[in-house]
């Protein structure tokens, strides 16, 4: 869709839930030599039919989902999708075809079809594809550095973990609880006529829950979702570690180790508090935004408008275009945010969802500035866009969500750099006179050029004269992107920096999803417009 899919819909929402397979089968990777042979069949067939460039992606996408509610397991699914996509340039135009029949004949036919489609599309071409040069890397590999492969942990252990968490919530007074664990392993092999043969093994994990509380007399209900993050990690993310926690605030915060039992206990208390919370008085507030919330604001208001394909109009019919037009970048003076705002695009940060060795067109990953001291300095590009920005190389932002999808420009990790002056979140709150401290993502909506947005949080605490005085309900903030980032006055330091993210950023027609992280420290935004979204029916 147009933004991030919600957790509740994820069971159906993850694509490539093809064939159900056993865990044992999933753990045996396809032989690299075989993959190289299959790739060469496709590359040779494409070249012989007239392709001036070709790349091949052989993908094996494994997913495991465990979904529970209260005392029951609702769904356990292992699945696999395996096949090959071939992309070519012929007569200056792109062509693409995919097959899940991996015998030599079928592979060659797919390559031929890709060339035929490219030649057909060339008739409608306005200008030929200009591909940034890319050296071949030969035979190389990359793996997500996992400590514990989540697919190797017995299902019964994972089920028990979720059911124990549910039980903790029910004991604490929750009326309902849903918990889910999503695990993804992308075994991807990329080869191109540039001379690269890249084998990658990518892992992602996301534990999450929703605790629901009900006030039966008033007929009201409230929920609190997990404050975990989807991560580019193994099962070690679910082993709590005190050094990866930040305590002392109204909520325990987690870095690269998550404590499911602790968070669900706190969530159960929070739900009861939310049912009794005071409605917010609309007006201007200084917002203190925790990374569990701020990541989504960064995603929508910085990540999307700096996607170069949106800027150029390729997403005009679906996700929209961007207010960050090329003239603003060319001026080198466009004040996206205050001087405190430094935003970095990155495909390497350990534990992040975007971290891979190479992107889906064989470019080695790195990081670069997007916003420097508040000024727009760069976008996110792929090989056929780099020349538009005068770049000699792609920024490695190419991704396809399946072997059967066409790779295109997708968002890298886009993160807000921490402040250089030592500052904790607790110290930040002490200096706020009239403010709201927000945790967790909730409702989010932004226009098609990314000017006007409205966000709300899982938890909103009122700050009065430097002290947290209680919980608020019905608080949403509305802002203009440029005004909002220019109101950013203070950032906590690197000790407070954490990753948030999503498994399901949607883009393209037919739609594709991608996983992306956004890091940030707790940050302060002054004088933001807060509205009360409470309504009464009949």
């Amino acid at each position, binding site marked *: *869709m*147009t*933004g991030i899919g919600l957790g509740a819909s994820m069971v159906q929402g993850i694509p490539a839930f*093809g*064939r*159900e397979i056993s865990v044992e089968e999933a753990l045996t990777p396809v032989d690299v030599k075989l993959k190289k042979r299959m790739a060469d069949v496709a590359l040779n067939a494409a070249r012989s039919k007239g392709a001036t460039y070709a790349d091949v992606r052989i993908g094996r996408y494994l997913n495991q989902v465990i979904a529970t509610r209260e005392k*029951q*397991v*609702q*769904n*356990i699914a292992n*699945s696999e999708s395996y096949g090959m996509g071939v992309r070519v340039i012929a007569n200056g135009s*792109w062509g*693409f075809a995919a097959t*899940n029949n991996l015998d030599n004949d079928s592979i060659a036919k797919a390559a031929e079809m890709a060339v035929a489609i490219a030649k*057909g599309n060339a008739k*409608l*071409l*306005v200008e030929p594809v200009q591909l940034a040069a890319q050296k071949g890397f030969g035979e190389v590999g990359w793996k997500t550095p996992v400590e514990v492969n989540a697919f190797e942990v017995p*299902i019964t252990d994972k*089920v028990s973990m979720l059911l124990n968490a549910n039980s903790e919530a029910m004991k604490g007074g929750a009326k*309902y609880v849903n918990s889910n664990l999503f695990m993804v392993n992308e075994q991807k092999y990329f080869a191109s006529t540039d001379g690269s043969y890249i084998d990658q093994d990518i892992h992602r994990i996301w534990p999450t829950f929703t605790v629901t509380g*009900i006030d039966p*007399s*008033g*007929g009201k*209900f409230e*929920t609190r979702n997990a404050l975990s993050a989807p991560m580019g990690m193994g099962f070690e993310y679910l082993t709590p570690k005190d050094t990866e926690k930040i305590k002392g605030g109204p909520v325990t915060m987690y870095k690269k180790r998550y404590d499911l039992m602790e968070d669900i206990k706190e969530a159960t208390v929070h739900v009861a508090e939310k049912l009794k919370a005071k409605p917010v008085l609309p007006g201007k507030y200084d917002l203190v935004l925790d990374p569990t919330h701020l990541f989504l604001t960064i995603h929508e208001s910085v990540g999307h408008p700096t996607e170069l394909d949106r800027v*150029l*109009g*390729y*997403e*005009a*019919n679906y996700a*929209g*275009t961007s*207010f960050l037009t090329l003239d603003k970048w060319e001026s080198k003076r466009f004040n996206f945010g205050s001087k405190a705002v430094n935003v970095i695009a990155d495909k390497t940060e350990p534990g992040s969802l975007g971290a891979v060795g190479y992107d889906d067109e064989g470019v080695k990953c790195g990081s670069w500035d997007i916003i420097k001291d508040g000024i727009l300095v760069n976008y996110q590009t792929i090989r056929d866009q780099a020349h538009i920005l005068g770049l000699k190389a792609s920024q490695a932002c190419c991704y396809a969500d399946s072997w059967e999808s*066409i790779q295109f420009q997708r968002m890298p990790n886009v993160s807000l750099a921490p402040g250089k002056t030592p500052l904790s979140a607790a110290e930040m709150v002490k200096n706020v006179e009239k403010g709201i401290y927000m945790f967790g993502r909730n*409702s*989010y*909506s*932004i*226009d*098609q*050029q990314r*000017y*006007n947005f*409205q966000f*709300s949080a899982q938890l909103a605490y009122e700050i009065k004269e430097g002290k947290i005085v209680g919980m608020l309900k019905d608080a*949403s903030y*509305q802002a*203009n992107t440029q005004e909002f980032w220019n109101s950013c006055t203070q950032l906590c330091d690197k000790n407070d920096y954490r990753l948030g993210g999503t498994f399901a950023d949607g883009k393209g*027609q*037919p739609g594709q999803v991608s996983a992306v992280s956004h890091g940030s420290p707790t940050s302060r935004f002054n004088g933001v*417009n807060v*509205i009360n*979204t*409470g*309504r009464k*029916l009949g």
Partner: protein
Amino acid sequence: MAILTKEQAKALLTKVLSYSKAEQCEVNLNGSDGGNIRYARSSVSTSGGISTNSLVVTSAFGKKSGVATINEFDDASLEKVVRRAEELAQLAPENPEFMDFLGPQEYGPESPTFSEATAAMGPKERADAVQASLNQAKENKLNAAGFLSNSTGYSAMMNSKGLFAYNKSTDVAFNITIRTEDGKGSGYATKGYNDYTKLDTKGATAIAAKKAMASVTAKAIEPGKYTVILEPTAVAVMLENLFFDLDARRADEGRSSMSKPGGKTKVGEQLLDERVNVYSDPWNPELPTATWNGDGRPQQKVNWIEKGVVKNLYTSMYWAAKKGIKSLPSPGGAIMQGGTKTLEELIKGTEKGILVTRLWYIRSVDPQTLLLTGLTRDGTFYIENGEIKFPVKNFRFNESPIIMLNNLDEIGKSERTVSAESDTNYLLPALKIRDFTFTSLSDAV
């Protein structure tokens, strides 16, 4: 594997069931063949063909069940997927909500969901349709970005209790955004049909182009409460959130806008203006849908909201049995009964108001009141004394479809429309609504 006929599907499913050693076994089979073209900056950007088939086996021993899926159809694979479902069932904990599979059902006459014309569509028909759209844009020196897709699909199911169901359908979807070269105007159109011959890509592009040209030099007016006329595309994205909320279990559990204090629901209550009638009908010639759903229950004509009163909620088989209520599956499509006025007539009868042609990025703000937020997009216009006076800048709104349908002024004619949020097709009218709440302005075009 091509689209299977009823007889072919029956033969394949019978074979799969013959491998079963479980107490109960149910098999669902789905397949589709189709293609698409995407274009932007007035040129084709991507195109492709997609063919998929999938077989889902559910095996059960007592209240333990397992599900396995496969997309390979040789005998060994078919037997393997049945064994795997059985293994998973034996490993699974007992599910107290597991329901025995249904026996044979009556589904009534076939619904006209299949069109030969759409099934015959290939790359040439797609390219011609897109060319017509591109030419229309080029004639007016406008930028076109659009997407055309078509598919032919079938679904079938069979179980060890003797149930068999089959349905074949086609659909074609087209949506187009036209922007002026200076980027100051934007217009949109979306169309969806079962029958490709009803699709006029040139006509739809002309509608989007007209909106794009008319929306240049939009003026900013103060946000606040306004009388609005929502075109059917805008109505779809608001009302579908109400349709999604007609779920019995969530209502009974006290966690939806259909819940009332003390564990009661709003069924039987006057929730909306008495002119609001919402129903589903699998045999409606303008919006035909399958006559059965994925668990084998028949789809029927159902009145969900009658004269503004909530009449029925949909439910799972388990919840229906537990609560002793009618076992109604969620419908394949929803229809709101329309009036007689055209959009032009609604505008003519409006003293002051705003014409909203599209709403987008709709998100739930408060599930209890069904409060939604989102923005206008691709053409918003100020109406005075029965005429469109000038384009206005886009607004953000915060509004609930329940409140909206209590502030109902007039209902236009119903037409087939598509939700740009969920891609679902509906039959919906344009609506004139009082006191629709716009909360801020957006600079987006």
